[in-house]
């Protein structure tokens, strides 16, 4: 039996809800998770068969819970990937996007300077950041299947454009939210500044593609499809997982596609909220963290005279030997003999 009342020894199967309201036999509210081996030996009182079963189960359960968590996460990720078809990379995307957005400021400025030649803008985008390139590659891979269907009819050339696309698409995604973010904190402002240029790159690239061929419509269709699929699925996925990246994805699309127009509204506002909250939350959290750390590293905290809280691990790790405690929070610490001899 995985769980056992520490008072009367009654055992409960894993996941039992009986224990939630206390042990039905003795009313005890302390339970322990009995390891399989011990359960088998100890719970001889309870049916031996049960114990044997439980040994298998408990072992399995322990592993199972971990597995479950893992599989759930993985499943969620795959679903997200599916749904977003490259644009949404929930956790990855958020991390990469954050990098992109911050880095994007510099890159984008460089890009913006380039745009003199619209074609160059498209070329410059891949050159921008290695980080982007990687992320772009990922997205390109994912976006490929989605883009393939429409693009097949359009041209073979779009491949190059598509590669560019995902990169640009991401940047604008990252930036477009940042654009909307402008009301947010200074950090976001910086990103927003970078965002606008990124948007320009998007625009620049799109004209470039249009100039080359009828790639535009193909792109727009693929995008719109992407956007649609993202809209439905993203709504769910985002509701579960808060990823700022997801939201940004849509905005670039609405620039071009009329289809996307509906989506950006939905997506942008949540993205804004999240983006704003993230940076603003960081600064206070750092201070809080510091306080927490200070508290943690203080071996003896004097709440008030006569009231103390002790950090045993800190006391244990402390080399000095505290021999007396002052009410102002100071300790008198035993000085090693060698020092004392030296002073004397």
């Amino acid at each position: 039996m995985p769980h056992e009342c520490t008072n009367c020894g009654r055992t409960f199967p894993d996941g039992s809800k009986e224990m939630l309201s206390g042990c039905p036999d003795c009313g005890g509210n302390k339970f322990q998770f009995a390891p399989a081996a011990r359960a088998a030996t100890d719970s001889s009182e309870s049916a031996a068969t049960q114990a044997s079963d439980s040994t298998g189960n408990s072992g399995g359960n322990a592993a199972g819970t971990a597995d479950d968590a893992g599989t759930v996460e993985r499943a969620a990720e795959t679903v997200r990937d599916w749904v977003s078809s490259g644009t949404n990379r929930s956790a990855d995307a958020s991390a990469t996007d954050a990098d992109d957005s911050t880095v994007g400021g510099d890159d984008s400025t460089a890009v913006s300077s380039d745009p003199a030649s619209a074609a160059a803008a498209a070329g410059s985008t891949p050159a921008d950041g290695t980080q982007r390139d990687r992320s772009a590659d990922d997205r390109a891979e994912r976006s490929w299947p989605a883009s393939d269907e429409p693009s097949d009819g359009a041209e073979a050339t779009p491949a190059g454009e598509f590669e560019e696309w995902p990169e640009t698409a991401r940047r604008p995604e990252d930036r477009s939210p940042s654009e909307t973010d402008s009301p947010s904190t200074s950090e976001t402002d910086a990103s927003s500044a970078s965002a606008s240029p990124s948007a320009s790159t998007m625009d620049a690239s799109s004209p470039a593609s249009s100039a080359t061929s009828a790639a535009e419509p193909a792109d727009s269709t693929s995008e719109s499809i992407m956007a649609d699929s993202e809209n439905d699925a993203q709504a769910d996925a985002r509701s579960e997982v808060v990823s700022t990246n997801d939201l940004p994805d849509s905005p670039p699309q609405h620039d071009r596609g009329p289809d996307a127009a509906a989506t950006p509204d939905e997506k942008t506002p949540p993205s804004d909220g999240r983006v704003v909250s993230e940076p603003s939350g960081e600064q206070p959290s750092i201070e809080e963290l510091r306080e927490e750390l200070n508290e943690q590293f203080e071996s003896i905290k004097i709440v008030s005279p006569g009231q103390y809280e002790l950090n045993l691990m800190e006391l244990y790790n402390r080399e000095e030997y505290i021999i007396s405690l002052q009410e102002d929070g100071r300790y008198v610490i035993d000085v090693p003999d060698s020092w004392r001899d030296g002073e004397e």
Partner: protein
Amino acid sequence: MGLFTELKDSISRVTDRLFSEEEPKRIGIYGPPNAGKTTLANRIARDWTGDAVGAESHIPHETRRARRKEGVEIERNGKSVEIDIVDTPGVTTKVDYEEFTDEMEEDDAIRRSREATEGVAEAMHWLREDVDGVIYVLDSAEDPITQVNTMLIGIIESRDLPVLIFANKIDLDDASVKRIEDAFPQHETIPLSAKEGENMDEVYENIAEYFG
């Protein structure tokens, strides 16, 4: 000079371990406040040397400085072991003078509280530096699964110190040795009542065998 004495100390500590049969091992009696550590230390000391170690009290934190009784020789079944017993202040994460105000004046309670806190620091220091083995004393009538117990046992395990768990106060009605056995199944648990002298034979057998 100081460096030299320090060096000498560390060398003698090493040789202590090498020739542990000749040098008495230092056994720390640890546990939460009011588990009966001093009562146990006194029981052992009286049984084998005739002296007491320290004052006992029902008020927690009576022991606020570590006290040592050296050269306690315990013989059991032909086995003999000489140990130094270190009775340590009860270890806790919170000390509040209001616990004692029923029993004494506020000033005294505050002082007791401060000394108790110093005592915990001292106990932790001893655990780090100066003990070769641990007798961990628990009140059988209390829930053994506490932060302090788990942390201390964890520290003791991390240091690879030999440890015996003494389930004390089995004379109390609501004592449950099983609860302690279940809480720390990886260690030997010996039930006893230091106050009443119950099961002391098994206690000494285990000490002789485990720390010998």
